[in-house]
């Protein structure tokens, strides 16, 4: 039976974005073709429509970009902090002005819902630049000595799950501290970084301060291995993070890594149950679960398990999966065929290993990369879906009986990025927060981000922090 109150399509207009037929690399303040002339196509994951063609940077382009950044470093780092600050404030303002355009662009290239790019990604991007702008002339007060110096050229490699936001997390602190950057956006989501290049142009940013190289993994590998870089910052998979750590071993390159996670979202029997359900949904279905700090393991106290799961299933039945540009869409497309295959494989392993699979009834579009929100119950610590990062809209539900058991299970992971605790008892929150080995603990909330709040992992989730006073350390010679 169709519902009585059926929402009509409410698509955000694409007209606000003008995507050119092709894009070059942004090096030394101008767009140019790759030295090797190679290009690749970027598609919209929700339709598989080719959006445009972008240059594929090779080793020679890496040389050129690093050299440009090196040249720019001398004057950029010598600029009074207050002047650097003004450039960053300008960038923040231009991003605010162009946020609708950038939100639509991001949705097109990434597949995530416009509701999220509009309400989460873009406001955070602008906020990140605004926050770090203010640091540029106050570094002496940041706790890193009276005159902390920048490192030099920062090589930054970012993922496809929050393309522009991850760019902001990397570029804003780097520039505020006086570094210049060569940034490589993810292969499947190059466009917002290229539009950011135009934002830099509009802000009048000196040439060479920000360079953007589009390409694939080989481009990123060449960049982080380049002898001319002083700093490597990477956000992405733990496997690639380890490879980068090996690459920079023995060098003087400063390294920060923001990697995978298998966050435990722990719900006690005295939790605010309706908000916990929202937190679970936000924890694993936000951005299609393609979030390193996703609450992908639900640890629920056995005494409320049935009640909570009933409520969760009921809530999931109201999730709207489909056209990411529709303003009412809650769950959009998976970013790529490759990622979809990985999610599918892991979800299938969950079934094969005996966990019980459930998804709400939802029709998935025929074209594009789609995966229905999925819940696995009856999961144990021994299941692959309880241990491996799925990076998709798949929740693994485990149960516990006591706080000690919850802590033990939550910490029983190679990762340590995020955790959630849901209980109305204050002292228990603090005790749990203290014992969880994770860089971010969300108590009675989940997946909250702020430029003032340091973010980063324990264990194999990486090291270094992004955001806040702590995040500056990654870009200062201290």
């Amino acid at each position, binding site marked *: 039976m169709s519902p009585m*109150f*059926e*929402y009509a399509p409410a698509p955000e207009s694409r007209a606000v974005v003008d995507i050119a037929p092709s894009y070059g690399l942004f090096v030394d303040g101008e767009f140019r073709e790759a030295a090797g002339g190679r290009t690749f196509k970027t598609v919209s994951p929700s339709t598989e429509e080719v959006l445009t063609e972008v240059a594929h940077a090779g080793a020679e382009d890496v040389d050129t970009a690093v050299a440009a950044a090196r040249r720019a470093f001398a004057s950029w780092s010598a600029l009074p902090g207050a002047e650097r600050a003004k450039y960053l404030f300008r960038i923040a303002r231009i991003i605010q002005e162009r946020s609708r355009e950038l939100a639509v662009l991001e949705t097109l290239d990434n597949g995530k819902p416009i509701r999220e790019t509009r309400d989460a990604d873009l406001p955070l991007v602008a906020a990140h630049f605004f926050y770090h702008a203010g640091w540029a002339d106050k570094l002496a007060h940041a706790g890193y000595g009276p005159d902390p110096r920048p490192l030099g050229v920062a090589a930054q490699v970012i993922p496809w799950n929050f393309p522009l936001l991850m760019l902001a997390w990397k570029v804003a602190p780097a520039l505020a501290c006086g570094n210049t950057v060569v940034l490589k956006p993810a292969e499947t989501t190059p466009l917002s970084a290229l539009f950011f290049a135009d934002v830099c142009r509009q802000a009048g940013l000196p040439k060479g301060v920000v360079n953007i190289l589009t390409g694939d993994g080989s481009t990123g590998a060449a960049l982080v291995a380049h002898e001319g870089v002083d700093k490597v910052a990477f956000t992405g998979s733990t496997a690639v993070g380890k490879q980068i750590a090996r690459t920079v071993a023995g060098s003087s390159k400063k390294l920060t890594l923001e990697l995978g996670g298998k966050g435990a979202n722990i719900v006690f029997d*005295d939790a605010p149950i309706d908000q916990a359900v*929202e937190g679970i949904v936000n924890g694993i279905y936000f951005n299609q679960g393609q979030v390193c700090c996703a609450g992908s393991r639900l640890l629920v106290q056995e005494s409320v398990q049935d009640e909570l799961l009933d409520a969760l299933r009921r809530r999931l039945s109201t999730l709207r999966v489909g056209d990411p540009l529709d303003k009412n869409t809650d769950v959009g497309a998976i970013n790529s065929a490759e990622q979809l295959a990985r999610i599918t494989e892991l979800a299938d392993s969950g079934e094969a290993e005996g966990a019980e699979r459930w998804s709400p009834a939802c029709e998935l579009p025929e074209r594009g990369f789609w995966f229905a929100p999925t819940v696995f119950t009856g999961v144990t610590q021994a299941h692959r879906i309880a241990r491996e990062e799925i990076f998709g809209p798949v929740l693994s539900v485990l149960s516990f009986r006591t706080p000690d058991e919850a802590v033990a299970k939550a910490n029983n992971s190679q990762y340590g990025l995020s955790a959630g605790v849901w209980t109305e008892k204050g002292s228990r929150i603090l005790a749990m927060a203290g014992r969880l080995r994770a860089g971010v603990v969300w108590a009675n909330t989940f997946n909250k981000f702020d430029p003032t709040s340091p973010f980063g992992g324990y264990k194999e989730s990486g090291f270094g922090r992004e955001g806040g006073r702590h995040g500056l350390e990654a870009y200062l010679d201290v």
Partner: protein
Amino acid sequence: MTVCYARRYAPLVTMPASSPTAPAAPPPAAPPALADATASDAALRRFLHGLPGVDAVGLEARAAQLGTRSIKTTAKAYAIDLAISMIDLTTLEGADTPGKVRALCAKGVNPDPTDRTVPKVAAICVYPDMVATARQALDAGGGQDVKVASVATAFPSGRAELGVKLADTRDAVAAGADEIDMVIDRGAFLSGRYMKVFEEIRAVKQACARADREDAHLKVIFENGELSTYDNIRRASWLAMLAGADVIKTSTGKVAVNATPANTLVMLEAVRDFRAATGTQVGVKPAGGIRTAKDSIRYLVMVNEVLGDDWLHPDWFRFGASSLLNDLLMQRQKLTTGRYSGPDYVTVD
């Protein structure tokens, strides 16, 4: 005494056709599934304080997120008509006169004189002394199916002896009110005398009964703004439902904070959970401060996504409002004509 009263009237009460799961009569006690909860003052207190807590920030974030739903074209047309049909068109002024009430009734029956496809409102809501006037005006104007709702029980403060409240209620019922909007004793609630509030609601519920026709439906107003916390609103919701409320209502419209999406969301969750626990469906009425079509659609979105189809009906969801109707009408005209309307194209109340 309660039990006798209920037994006496039970055979005379017919189940409202539109309310398939509503209780047939003032319940002799709380629904069987939760009978223990009201066994004593202490038990009731334990029960209410054992309800899951409400995290204010998470609740408000959820309400705000639902508020970003974009309701366009056909969905908007549907929602506007549904909202109109759910309005308790209200006048609760010291200056109310029969003339004013008759005008309001005429408007409730024919909200848009230029467009007869506009649905009637659900009810006209007045003080008890205007109930008869309203009923007559509605019946005379083709609005036999529009209900008359009356506030009672020393509305809006509730500061009167129970006897006075019951007399107030019986008066309105006798005058032909289909629905009674009572206020709870917030003083008793806030001081933790839950059983007093419970007994009072039950007593008023009994005063809603009548021999000649269907009992008046009871709406219980919490005055959320005075209860102050969402935990209190959740407790008040359960307390009222245990006591037999047919509808739980946010506010009187007479204090600073009236219905908000968040405090209404708590009540929606409560009626959802109450039906799951007892099988009894209870309605919800946000009142006060809902002035625009956009506001009302936000509420309907909440009802849709929290409760679903079962509550998307005037029997189960109402808006206590006055100026809301004109904005809905202007939005409706915009959808029909394609151009924006203005206040000169709708009727003043």
